[in-house]
């Protein structure tokens, strides 16, 4: 038990565990101290000076995000000195900020803009020199615009400490300080995996995805194209946030309605190919065990993780499942089976994947993801991009009625729904593998692999054998797990890895929630809750029991791992070291 500390904040008594910062303690008194550089679990460096407060008896103001509470301390968060200091700090930050707020992707969702409003600042009080930086568009995933950057270092902390990639850092000093890749050669020349965690950490509009919205609108208005959208498992759990709905609202029905209102398009359920992935992957695992192929097997649905292996641990490529991700499987199914069945030339089919992810934009463009010169998936857009299309079309999202996904690709299992949360793919695979190996094993819930902790381990007894599994999310955690496996300290049969902490619900393409949400709520768990609810409320909970999957094999793919399935649903990887 930690010692409890008593203090007052604006004369309100507060009692918090020792080691708590003033900023955290203030929340107990219903006060949110503003900040820019502080982000819970990510960045705690006390550098922006927006969170300053007065501590009675102490000279000068202190940065509340790093200042620990003390017994009997009297804190004042709203004195004239505090307000003046914060206001000046914000005005100084704005003096070099390119205030192109009208055309900024974060126009209505900018922490700096909000603070400017809250403090009634004069944006022209200090006329700073405005250095012009070239916008870094060197990756297909993430765009960096230093002209909007306020040097809070939340992106750098995310990239270096959470993801352990180190693609960007702080360069030069004083007035010339800026964020960039080493030797300013652009993100595309670094080990950046395009996860986009820097984007969701950014308080302003300095980081955003490379938008593909225009291409999608062009395809929709092209009379020669048949346009198909499909949505990843976690989109229904987060899209509502872009329309000011509470975090944790399932908007699946409204989402389908809204996409159908964008134009003459079909909307399919990507959860279906999550089921297909599980059937292929569970079979691959069983095959690997029986034929002494490399173990542990690592999941392969996350393109950020795949790139991480290709850049850092190419020797582990044989351990990656050869299964394509659900996105790529869906594209392959549409451009083969679906086109043949409906007499469509694959060239005329335009496939739009809606994903919670920026790395998927890279995945669609991989050489391995083309079949005879035709891409499996034409374009991948993020949850945020979809929301902008819906807004641009003038659709009043929150008042929409529900619509079901289009047939024949509508029905999916609960196992597929939970793909969007860390541990979900593992649980889905275990449900199927256990049942395939032992027909009497009907175990559905594998609770040990649930939850938002970065590394989870479990042992399950399946068909008389103990199966050791591990689940990691966040690439720093992935690195830890790999190092433990390489050193022989740990031995697993099957390992699930997602590049983003918490899995796809917290992906780099998801709605950006401000520090005031990320610092005080359990964003990842609340979003994941939507998926686990959808799973437990449904009838169909195992991927291999999905009747559409059975039809796909009966009519086209024959059986998991068979020639056609292998050619279209599996892939290869390449070293990028």
């Amino acid at each position: 038990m930690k010692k409890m500390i008593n203090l007052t904040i604006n004369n309100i008594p507060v009692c918090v565990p020792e080691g708590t910062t003033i900023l955290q303690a203030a929340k107990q008194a219903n006060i949110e101290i503003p900040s820019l550089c502080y982000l819970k679990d990510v960045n705690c460096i006390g550098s922006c000076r927006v969170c300053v407060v007065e501590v009675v008896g102490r000279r000068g103001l202190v940065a509340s995000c790093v200042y620990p509470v003390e017994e009997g301390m009297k804190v004042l968060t709203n004195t004239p000195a505090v307000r003046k200091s914060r206001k000046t700090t914000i005005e100084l930050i704005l003096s070099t900020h390119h205030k192109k707020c009208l055309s900024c992707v974060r126009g209505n969702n900018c922490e700096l803009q909000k603070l400017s409003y809250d403090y009634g600042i004069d944006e022209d009080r200090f006329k700073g020199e405005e250095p012009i930086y070239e916008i870094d568009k060197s990756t297909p995933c993430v765009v960096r615009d230093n002209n909007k950057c306020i040097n809070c270092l939340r992106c750098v902390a995310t990239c270096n400490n959470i993801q352990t990639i180190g693609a960007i850092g702080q360069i030069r000093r004083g007035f010339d300080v800026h964020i960039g890749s080493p030797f300013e050669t652009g993100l595309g020349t670094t080990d950046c995996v395009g996860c986009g965690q820097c984007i969701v950490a950014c308080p302003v509009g300095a980081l955003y995805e490379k938008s593909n919205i225009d291409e999608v609108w062009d395809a929709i208005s092209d009379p020669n194209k048949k346009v198909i959208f499909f949505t990843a498992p976690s989109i229904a759990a987060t899209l509502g946030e872009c329309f000011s709905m509470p975090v944790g609202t399932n908007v699946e029905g409204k989402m389908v309605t809204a996409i159908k209102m964008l134009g003459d398009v079909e909307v399919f359920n990507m959860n279906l190919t999550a089921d297909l992935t599980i059937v292929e992957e569970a079979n691959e695992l069983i095959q690997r065990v029986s034929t002494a192929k490399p173990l542990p097997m690592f999941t392969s649905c996350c393109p950020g993780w795949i790139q991480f292996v290709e850049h850092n641990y190419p020797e582990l490529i044989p351990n990656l499942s050869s299964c394509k991700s659900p996105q790529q499987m869906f594209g392959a199914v549409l451009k083969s089976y679906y086109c043949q069945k409906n007499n469509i030339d694959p060239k005329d089919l335009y496939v739009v994947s809606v994903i919670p992810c920026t790395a998927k934009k890279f995945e669609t463009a991989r050489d391995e993801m083309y079949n005879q010169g035709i891409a499996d998936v034409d374009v991948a857009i993020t949850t945020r991009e979809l929301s902008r299309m819906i807004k641009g079309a003038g659709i009043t999202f929150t008042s929409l009625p529900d619509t079901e996904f289009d047939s024949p690709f509508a029905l999916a299992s609960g196992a597929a729904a939970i793909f969007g949360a860390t541990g979900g793919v593992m649980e889905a695979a275990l449900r199927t593998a256990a049942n395939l190996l032992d027909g009497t094993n009907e175990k559905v819930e594998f609770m040990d692999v649930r939850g938002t902790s970065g590394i989870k381990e479990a042992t399950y007894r399946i068909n008389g054998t103990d199966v050791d599994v591990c689940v990691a999310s966040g690439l720093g955690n992935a690195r830890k797990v790999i190092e433990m496996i390489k050193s022989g300290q740990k031995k697993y049969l099957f390992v699930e890895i997602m590049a983003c902490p918490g899995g796809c619900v917290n992906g780099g393409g998801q709605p950006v929630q401000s520090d005031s949400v990320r610092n005080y709520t359990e964003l990842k768990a609340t979003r994941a809750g939507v998926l686990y609810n959808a799973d437990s409320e449904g009838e169909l909970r195992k991927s291999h029991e999905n009747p559409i999957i059975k039809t796909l094999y009966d009519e086209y793919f024959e059986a998991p791992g068979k020639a056609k399935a292998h050619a279209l649903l599996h892939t290869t990887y390449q070293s990028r070291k």
Partner: protein
Amino acid sequence: MATETKSTFRGTPKQERELKKVIEKYKKIPGGLMPVLQEAQAIYGYLPVEVQKIIADGMGIHLSEVYGVATFYSQFSLTPKGEHIISVCLGTACYVKGADKILEAIEEELGIKSGECTADGMFSIEACRCLGACGLAPVMTVDGEVYGKCTPESAVEIIRSYMDKED
């Protein structure tokens, strides 16, 4: 995007062995990157991307961190230094006496900017802060030799005299 070093790296295996010894020495010490960078600059004369990569790999840290520290301190140079190092004082006294015009004239004469090195490796130019010779303002130095009361014309003459010495 612009790169800061041109690919003119001519490191020798001997230099690399020396650098790796230095890295071993400081690898485990907190804050060891600074002395490693200092010694690397002593070995190579500057800190090109090739050298920074050896340091990042050897120290087990990201290249972005090495580059961040190397660009933070003005004593570290990312470009090779010339055989003759020209420093033009831009301190207050020299500046008001027209030191900027002197710098411009030298830049034009050599066809490079401050902080750069000529293609033949002969000269590099840097702007420096007060040399403490304000009475002689405007002041420049070549290889540490101080030249006072310069004019753009006399500065160019001085540079040419170094060219002549080489011939």
